[in-house]
């Protein structure tokens, strides 16, 4: 009977350039105070010129591999969650695979937006559990590298029409090693969901293959249709309810009371909505951490980046709740017991 798969280690990387509201506001023809008031965000990180999510994830992966004593040759698969891949195809997983020198290990890009890390973790746990038809190329343990990374800074509307969304979306990456083992953190419950009827409330429409005869034209670009757009007012009540429900569900599945959760990372592009959902779920506000407040919304990577920053201070047995929502609309939560 194979050992149940666990989260063996985690790494993260926030790129060096820290962009404050003071730097961003003039281009958007607003003030730093107004940005802070509307978004609840003071600063975010932008990747250096020429770097994509695979470059950021590479640094996070190096840390995750080292911390679990995993050699690149121990890996059976790389799963990369992103909405902003290095290039349109192939995916960032292939680029990361090359940067790590991972021989011919399989590499897979998944797109689930802000639920990306949860989706990739869910898949990695399923693939490394020894129950499926998947055959790891090497004999021995099936360790899978889960990466999440975004570079939004190269695709944001830096004119006044971007004032509401541009300060919120940011860059960064994280990586985790998943595999069977007695050590490592135990994912007690994980559930994630989607509702595509709300896709056009928070999206980046272009390039759009469905447009005949060309997926993107100069006219589309001139109209700014290749920039992200969001209707926060329409989404807020729906997202708050969905986040709350997912958190309650995983708490129940794990058999945990809200009060027993030591740290909750709840991520959404509008921090007050994340906090309201957490509060409704019974989580004490001083234990609730909203990654977007600290470094902007890094879609798939926000949750694991913040989790990594706190990982070392959490004692074995500590109960952690991860939850996120975003475009799709996708949302989900995980109850993780530190190992």
């Amino acid at each position, binding site marked *: 009977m194979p050992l149940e798969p666990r989260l063996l280690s985690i790494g993260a990387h926030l790129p060096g350039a820290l962009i404050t509201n003071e730097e961003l506001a003039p281009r958007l023809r607003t003030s730093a105070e107004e940005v802070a008031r509307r978004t609840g965000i003071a600063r975010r990180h932008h990747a250096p010129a020429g770097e994509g999510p695979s470059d950021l994830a590479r640094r996070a992966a190096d840390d995750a591999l080292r911390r679990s004593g995993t050699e690149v040759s121990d890996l059976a698969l790389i799963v990369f969650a992103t909405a902003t891949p290095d290039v349109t195809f192939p995916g960032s997983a292939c680029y990361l695979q090359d940067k790590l020198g991972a021989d011919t290990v399989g590499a897979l890009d998944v797109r689930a937006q802000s639920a990306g890390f949860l989706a990739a973790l869910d898949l990695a746990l399923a693939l490394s559990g020894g129950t499926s038809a*998947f055959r790891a190329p090497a004999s021995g343990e099936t360790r899978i590298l889960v990466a999440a990374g975004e570079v939004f800074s190269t695709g944001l509307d830096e004119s006044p029409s971007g004032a509401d969304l541009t300060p919120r979306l940011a860059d960064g990456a994280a990586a985790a090693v998943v595999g069977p083992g007695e050590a490592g953190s135990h994912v007690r419950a994980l559930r994630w969901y989607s509702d595509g009827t709300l896709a056009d409330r928070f999206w980046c429409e272009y390039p759009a293959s469905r447009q005949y005869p060309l*997926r993107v034209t100069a006219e589309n670009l001139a109209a700014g249709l290749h920039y992200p757009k969001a209707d926060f007012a329409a989404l807020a009540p729906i997202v708050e309810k969905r986040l709350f429900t997912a958190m309650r569900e995983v708490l129940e599945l794990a058999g945990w009371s809200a009060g027993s959760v030591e740290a909750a990372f709840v991520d959404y592009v509008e921090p007050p909505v994340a906090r309201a959902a957490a509060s409704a779920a019974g989580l004490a506000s001083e234990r609730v951490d909203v990654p977007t407040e600290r470094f902007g919304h890094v879609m798939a990577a926000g949750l694991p980046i913040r989790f990594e920053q706190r990982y070392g201070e959490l004692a074995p047995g500590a109960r952690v709740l991860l939850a996120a929502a975003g475009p799709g609309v996708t949302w989900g939560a995980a109850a993780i017991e530190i190992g």
Partner: protein
Amino acid sequence: MSERTHILGIGSAVPDNVVTNDDLSRVMDTSDEWIQQRTGIRQRRHIAADCGGTDLGAIAAREALASAGVGIDQIDAIVYATLSPDIDWPASANLLAAKLGARSVPAFDVRNQCSGFLYSLASADALIRAGRARHVLVVGGEIHSTGIDLTTRGREVAVIFGDGAGAVVLGPSPDPQRGLLSTHLHAEGRYAEKLWLESASSRKKPRIEPADLDGDAPRAFPSMSGRYVFKHAVTRFPEVIQEALAANGLRVEDLDVLIPHQANLRINQFVAAALEMDEAKVVNNIDRYGNTTAASIPLALAEAMRDGRVSEGRLVCLAAFGAGFTWAAALFRW
């Protein structure tokens, strides 16, 4: 050991608009003879009005659900394999789910180019066998025609690709001896830029701009080093097929049907010869559909199921090689 999964139903959909090699030679400097000789393609389908891969995918999915006798309410996850999503984000799986009236189940895109369908199948199988789902809808859908350069400048790539979608319902196998035996997934990212599409690209600022649409080698159209792709395909295809057979204690002689990704007929013929396989055991339909990337295997599988080449008890191998580079195989006892 948890019960095997199997393909319970299949569906397919292609646009009505047929584009022949002669049609292409009217807009670019090429010929029917040249295209057939190099690729084996006679015609492909291109959309003729706004249409997403998920529109074709929804038609294919409904057919798959009906043939499986499974309702959309029984679908616990939706995996959509594509390199040509309807929109940039969110994932097209979300749009497909909405079109089908699905419950709020996990729905995500797998962005793995020509191996996307097999990577998605492996993922769906894993979710089912880990107890996270009972029935998963796996769809491969592509609208290539709006993203290729249909001029002489882009002819090397443009003549190859076609639009289409294929869908399967994966669920518990009705018979423990039958179903998906094993899956094998590989990649080699050092060859990423031998077959790639740069723009939109998050590693450059701006990620997409008007200059990407023009010039001698526009970044917003795919580019390919054909010789590299051919050379690696004819090595990796036999390799991963042998890997799948060996993992189950079987040999090439035991194989009843091989359904390779339809990238190029010459590659598939080369692979059959390398494996010393009778060509009659290899399913090819690239002559009629071109390279439909993530849709190519389910489109070919649907045909083979309809005409009885794939039938109960047969040993069937699905294999793919493509951009990434990525390659994969899935072995079924049908």
